[in-house]
């Protein structure tokens, strides 16, 4: 016998694609906040999701993989919000980020650290085929 996943309420999805540019992250942030507001999240939880998604977009922008779009998929049900942030690159190959100017401070991992702190579940995969995908889950208090 295989373990069946627990039965799930109906999933409703919102998909958003923005140019992979800093000036569009605010749009993703506000759209995701609007989605989270439709659920039973508290204001603090909405802010958490907003920041986590923005951090994921910022990562996608700062990585130098040649993608020109960021895809944000939000899947909601009665229990949780699941957000997938992915680079839409032709090649999908994530390469090293550009070198920083001398006076720039790279606090490596601050973005991902924040995401992990703010969300309940985070999965991160980068592969030559899939590009970089960050999957984050925020659960509703039951």
């Amino acid at each position: 016998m295989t373990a069946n996943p627990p039965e799930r309420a109906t999933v409703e999805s919102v998909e958003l694609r923005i140019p992979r540019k800093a000036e569009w992250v605010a749009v993703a942030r506000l759209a995701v906040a609007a989605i989270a507001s439709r659920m039973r999240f508290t204001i603090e939880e909405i802010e958490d999701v907003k920041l986590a998604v923005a951090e994921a977009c910022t990562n996608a922008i700062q990585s130098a993989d040649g993608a020109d779009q960021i895809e944000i998929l939000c899947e909601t049900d009665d229990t949780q919000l699941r957000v997938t942030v992915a680079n839409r690159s032709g090649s999908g190959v994530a390469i090293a980020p550009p070198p920083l100017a001398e006076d720039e401070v790279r606090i490596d991992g601050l973005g991902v650290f924040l995401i992990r702190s703010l969300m309940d579940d985070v999965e991160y995969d980068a592969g030559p085929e899939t590009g970089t995908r960050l999957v984050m889950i925020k659960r509703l208090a039951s």
Partner: protein
Amino acid sequence: MDIKVNVRETDGETNIVELAGEIDVYTSPKVKDALGELIDRGVYNLVIDLEKVRYIDSTGLGVLIGGLKRVREHGGTVNLVCTNPQIKKIFDITGLVKIFGIYDSEDAAMKASV
């Protein structure tokens, strides 16, 4: 979805940098430039007022940390004014509360600055 930077000189050596809006990957270079300009002019004691900041992300934190690093080389300080619980929470979970002085008012931050 923008940031406003307002720099005010005071009687002493400290300058107050009042930020208003959202500090994110798009707007943080503007904050970085403003801080850089002050530091280039030899202002090493900064009070950064975040009371009108509604949102800050890791790039914004990075800019504040970068500023702190630079003024510290000259024995300077960066003290923050912040009471917004969501923003304080970000400084909490990242441990940055231990690196910055965070105060409830400009007065308190100014006093700590000297």
